[in-house]
């Protein structure tokens, strides 16, 4: 018995002793920007790892956009250095012999990997660790034109003859559509749930379902910039924040987000390209007529996360008062009625909020 106890103890000591010589991997399975080592010291400068543009920017893009100078590769060599894996090797030399480390950027582990064996960048399955900083108000101010006729029209009698006006091309001024173009394909859509403690009744069957208007017309929706192309047109260099100042537009989030791009609306039935009874576009007059909060927004995240709708009720009731009155009457008089003129019943089942003041 004594012999066996001694053997177990010696074996345990041997395991502990051997284990102490093993390298504990400093690398995570999924690279994280939030570890102190990855965001302090020289690594607080994003350009230490992300050089812009990467050599492969000329290749066809996964998002089908036209190629433009961009960061399109996993960090490989630190800018201005030659050699292999210089970005990571300083701290992770010992990890280069571990398969799990290779798989952070490569499709398979091994010493003889080629450019083809690199994972797509950015890797969507790793989620995003950043939120976007964007002040709408500043951008709206800078694209504003000073559309006031400076010359006062004065009536003079002159000898005149008819002359056709020169065939000048109509000048298109920048507006919201610089960034928010009409969608070419129907984006993933969902009803945006109100922030409330109330428990509404279950949603009734909705006439707005697959096959109805905004489920089959891409033009119901506007697109948002989903890569750097739009921003770089003005911010690639010299105009701050420039393309190498990542923190100028990207803020490290508290947690990794795997949220997919989904257009969430309170009023899913709204069609940006709806045609009025007169056959003319009914909603395309001017974005600012309805998207009132945007003009005063300096914080994109606050704008997105505000419980109040971006388009206030009054913006709709200006033109749709009769329809909304009808909905409101039904709400008063029909028990269990769920508003459905603007909303799907997923939202219409909630009690009418204070914001829906009838004037």
């Amino acid at each position, binding site marked *: 018995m004594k012999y066996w106890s001694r053997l177990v103890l010696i074996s345990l000591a041997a395991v502990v002793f051997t284990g102490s010589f093993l390298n504990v991997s400093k690398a995570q399975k999924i690279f994280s920007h939030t570890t102190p080592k990855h965001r302090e010291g020289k690594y607080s400068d994003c350009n230490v790892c992300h050089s812009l543009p990467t050599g492969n920017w000329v290749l066809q893009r996964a998002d089908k956009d036209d190629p433009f100078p961009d960061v399109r590769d996993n960090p490989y060599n630190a800018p201005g250095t030659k050699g292999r894996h210089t970005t990571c090797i300083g701290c992770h030399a010992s990890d280069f012999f571990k398969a799990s480390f290779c798989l952070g950027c490569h499709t398979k582990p091994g010493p003889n990997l080629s450019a083809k064996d690199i994972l797509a960048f950015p890797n969507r399955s790793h989620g995003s660790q950043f939120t976007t900083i964007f002040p709408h108000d500043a951008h709206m101010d800078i694209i504003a034109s*000073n559309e*006031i006729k400076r010359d006062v029209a004065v009536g003079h009698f002159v000898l005149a003859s008819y002359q056709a006006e020169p065939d000048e091309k109509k000048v298109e*001024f920048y507006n919201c559509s610089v960034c928010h173009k009409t969608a070419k394909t129907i984006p993933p859509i969902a009803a945006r749930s109100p922030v409330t403690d109330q428990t509404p009744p279950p949603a009734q069957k909705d006439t707005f379902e697959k096959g109805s208007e905004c489920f089959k017309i891409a033009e119901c929706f506007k697109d948002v910039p989903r890569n750097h192309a739009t921003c770089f047109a003005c911010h690639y260099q010299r105009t701050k924040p420039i393309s190498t100042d990542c923190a100028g537009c990207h803020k490290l989030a508290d947690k990794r987000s795997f949220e997919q791009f989904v257009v969430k609306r309170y009023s899913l039935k709204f069609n940006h390209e709806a045609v009025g009874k007169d056959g003319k576009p009914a909603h395309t007059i*001017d974005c*600012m007529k309805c998207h009132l909060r945007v*003009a005063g927004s300096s914080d994109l995240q606050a704008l997105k996360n505000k419980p109040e709708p971006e388009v206030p009720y009054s913006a709709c009731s200006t033109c749709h008062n009769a329809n909304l009155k009808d909905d409101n009457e039904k709400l008063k008089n029909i028990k269990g009625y769920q508003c459905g003129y603007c909303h799907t019943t997923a939202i219409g089942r909630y009690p009418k909020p204070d914001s829906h003041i009838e004037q």
Partner: protein
Amino acid sequence: MTILGRAKSGTTNIPLKKKRFYLFRGDREANKSLIDRLKAANVTLRDCFYCGLKASPEFMAWLKQGECESVHCREITQEDIAKVPEFQTAYQKGLKAFKDKPKFAPIFAQKWLVTNLEPGFRSGFYEARKTLIKNFQKDIVQTAMTDNSGNPPRGYFINIPMSAAAEKFVFTNLVPIEIGEKSYVWICEAQVSKEKIATAPVLDIDSSKLNKKCEVIVRDLPVCKAGACELK
């Protein structure tokens, strides 16, 4: 609160499109120092700003063609690049920057032209105006911009944080609006209540006809043309 974006001039209404207005808490008396500072403010006007940068007559003409305040107002076409020396210089810089990718060089030299312009021409005018607004930043409750197509254009202050059921606010455009040969800064008082949507007083360019709740700071516009930056 609704702002009707029109300046009344006699019987004529001048639409004030895409103009930003700022909201301050309190009546005009409470905002006396704001008004005094606005009266004393040294304001940069568009033509004088670009004139100070020694902008070419072609550049000034490009701006004036669309009454643009900056180069970010509309697309810069190949024709514009050929005509305007500042654009031409920036375009050449762009070609040089992407010279190792000849297929893409002309595309990005044009598409990203503003990134190669001289600093003042890129966003200098906007920055200059921002400096003026920064002086009042901490007291601004909310901002609103008038739309581009309404008759009259309208701007809205919504969900104004209120400390009582009804409160007085002052709204102003802070940055002078240029009309004809003069510039105008309106400062108006409005009562805002939780019960009813308030409509702001009419903005008249004639101070004698202006609503009692408003006052207007009128300045003559200096004549600033390329190559001749002088006051009238």
